[in-house]
C-alpha cells in the first residue's frame, strides 16, 4: 500500500510544521497570557530574510546562512515587537482583546513592509538538502525528511531549555505565577520578551522550512496559522505536550481527509472535529482550566 504510506508521510510533514507553529503560539499564550496574531507574518518574514541572505537572487551566502540569519533576525523582531505592541498594554484589564488588535496591527505593518521591501513577486527557497529519499518505500524529497527530523529535534531542545536551564525555569515560573516570580526578584519583563522572541524564532524557522515547499508570499503563514490555531485549541492551550500531540493528530487527519474527501471539505471536517472536542472539553483535550 504505497498510498497509505505517502498519506502517512505527508501527514507527518504537516504535523511537524503545525507542531512548531502551535508550540510558538502556545508558549506566548502560557507565558504572557495573550495570543499573537502576527505569528503567521513572522513565518513569511523569516522565509524572506532567508531568501535575501541565502539565495543567488539575494546575497547568495547559501541556505545554511539563510536559515541561521533568518531565525536570528526573527528572534530580534520578536523581542522588539513585544516591547512595542505588547508590553505597554499588559496592565490593561482587557489586555487579551487589546493584544489581538495590536498584534493584528503588527501583522498589517510587517505584511505591507515586506511588500515595500521585496515586492509582490512570488519567491521560493532552495531546499536545504536537495534530492529525493526513499522512505517507507515512498520517494519523498530530502527536504521533507529534514522537516520531519528538525521539528521534533527543535521541540525537544525547547523542552530541555524550559526544563533544565535557569532562564527556562524562570519562564515557566512566570507563566505559573507572575506575582510570586516578581517577589522572587525575577525580571518579568525581560522574561516576557524572551518568551516572545523564542516564539518568533520558532515562527521564523517554520517559515524557512515551509518556504522551499510553497511559494513565499506575505500570506505564507496565514493558512498554516489557522491550522495551528485549530491545533492549539484541539490540544488545549498551555500544555506543550498536548499541543505537539494534537499537531500530529491534526496533520495526519488532514492528510487522510485530503486524500479521501478532498481539499475543499477538509477545513470543514477539521473545524467539526474541533467543535466536537470543545463541546465535550471546553478547554481542549489536554488544556487546563482558566
Amino acid at each position, binding site marked *: 500500500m504505497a498510498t497509505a504510506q505517502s498519506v502517512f508521510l505527508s501527514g507527518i510533514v504537516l504535523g511537524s510544521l503545525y507542531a512548531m507553529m502551535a508550540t510558538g503560539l502556545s508558549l506566548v499564550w502560557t507565558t504572557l497570557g495573550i495570543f499573537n496574531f502576527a505569528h503567521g507574518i513572522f513565518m513569511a518574514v523569516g522565509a524572506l530574510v532567508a531568501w535575501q541572505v541565502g539565495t543567488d537572487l539575494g546575497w547568495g551566502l547559501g541556505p545554511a546562512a539563510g536559515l541561521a540569519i533568518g531565525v536570528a533576525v526573527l528572534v530580534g523582531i520578536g523581542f522588539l515587537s513585544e516591547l512595542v505592541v505588547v508590553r505597554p498594554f499588559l496592565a*490593561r484589564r482587557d489586555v487579551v482583546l487589546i493584544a489581538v*488588535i495590536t498584534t493584528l496591527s503588527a501583522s498589517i*505593518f510587517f505584511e505591507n513592509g515586506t511588500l*515595500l521591501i521585496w515586492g509582490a513577486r512570488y519567491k521560493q527557497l532552495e531546499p536545504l538538502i536537495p534530492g529525493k529519499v526513499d522512505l517507507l518505500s515512498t520517494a519523498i524529497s530530502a527536504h521533507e525528511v529534514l522537516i520531519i527530523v528538525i521539528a521534533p529535534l527543535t521541540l525537544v531542545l525547547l523542552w530541555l531549555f524550559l526544563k533544565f536551564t535557569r532562564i527556562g525555569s524562570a519562564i515557566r515560573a512566570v507563566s505559573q505565577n507572575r506575582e510570586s516570580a516578581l517577589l522572587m526578584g525575577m525580571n518579568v519583563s525581560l522574561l516576557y520578551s524572551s518568551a516572545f522572541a523564542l516564539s518568533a524564532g520558532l515562527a521564523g524557522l517554520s517559515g524557512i522550512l515551509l518556504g522551499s515547499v510553497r511559494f513565499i508570499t506575505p500570506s505564507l503563514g496565514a493558512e498554516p496559522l489557522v491550522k495551528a490555531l485549530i491545533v492549539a485549541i484541539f490540544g488545549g492551550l498551555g500544555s506543550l505536550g498536548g499541543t505537539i500531540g494534537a499537531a500530529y493528530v491534526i496533520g495526519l487527519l488532514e492528510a487522510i481527509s485530503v486524500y479521501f474527501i478532498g481539499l475543499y471539505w477538509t477545513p470543514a471536517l477539521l473545524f467539526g472535529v*474541533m467543535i466536537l472536542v470543545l463541546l465535550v472539553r471546553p478547554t481542549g483535550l489536554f488544556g487546563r482550566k482558566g
Partner: protein
Amino acid sequence: MRLNLTGPDGARLLCLAVLVVLPFFVPSAYVRHLIIVAVVYGVVASNWNFSLGYGGIFNFGHLAFFGLGAYASAILAKTVGITPWVTIVLAGVVAVIAAIIVSVPVLRLKGIYVVLVTFAFSQLCLQLIMSQQGMTGGSQGFPLVPQLKLGDYSFASDDKFGYYFVALFLLVISTLYLERLVRSNFGISVVALRDNEDYAVSRGISLARQRLLTLVASALFTGMAGGFFSTYTRVASPEIFGFGPLSLALSMMLLGGTGSIYGPIVGAFVITIVSELMIDLGPARFLIIAAMIILVLLFYPGGIIVGLRRAYDELLKLRPTRA
C-alpha cells in the same frame, strides 16, 4: 421621547443633518462613495460593538455575518431573482441563522477560546464559499449583482445619489435599534453578565440564552449591511472574510471607542477618510495606519469619541448662559 438639544441629542441631530445635506453641497461622486463605505462600516462596527464592547463576547467571526449577508443577498437577487429590496432584509435573516450556528460552540467557552473558535468559523465560511464555485463564483467573487430600483429609477443613476440615502437610512435605523437595545432590560442584563458574570447568573440571568441573543442581535443589521454592500458594489467578494476587513472594522471600533454606540461610527468615518487621504502612498499607508492604531490605543484608551465629547462640552460652555 424628549430631546435634549443642548446635550448629546443635539450633537447627534447636527451630525445627521450634516450628512443629509452634504450630497447637495458636495457634488463629487467620489466623496459620496467614501461616505457610503464609511456608513456601511459604521453599521458593522457599531453592531459588533454591541456583542464585543457591551456583551464582552470576543466574537471574531463578526465579519462572517457581513460576508454571508453579502453573498446571500447577491445570490438570492441574481440566481433566484428576488428584488434586492427584499434580499437585503433576507441577508439579515441569514446572518441571524449564522449567529445561532456559531453560538452553539461558543456558549460554553471563555475568553481566548471564543476568539479562536469564532475566528475559525469565519475561515470555515470562507472555505465553504471558495469550494462551492458553481454557486458563489469561488475565488473570483460573485459579480454583476442586480441594482436597487424604484419603479423605473435605477439607484445607480445620478452617480449613486440614491444609494447614499439608502445607506444613511440603514445607519439611522441600526443606530436607533442599538439605542433601544442597550437601554432595554435585555441590554442591561448583557452588560451585567460582562461586568460580573457570577453575580448576574446568581440573580437568575441565563448566560447561555443571553449570549445567544447577544450574537443574534449583533448579526441582524450586520447581515443587512452586507446585503446592501454587495448590491451597491455589485459584487460579493471572498476578500470580506480576510484579515484586512476584520482588522479594519476592529480598529474602527477600538479607535472610535467601545464605550458607546457612536464611538465605532466615528471611528469608521475617521479611518475611511484618513486611509483615503493617504491612498497615493500605496502599501506604506497601512504601515502608518497600523502605527496610528497602536498610538491611539496607547494614549487614548477610551477612543476618539472621548476627545470629541470633551471638545463638544467645551464648545457648549462658550455659549452665553441664559439669565
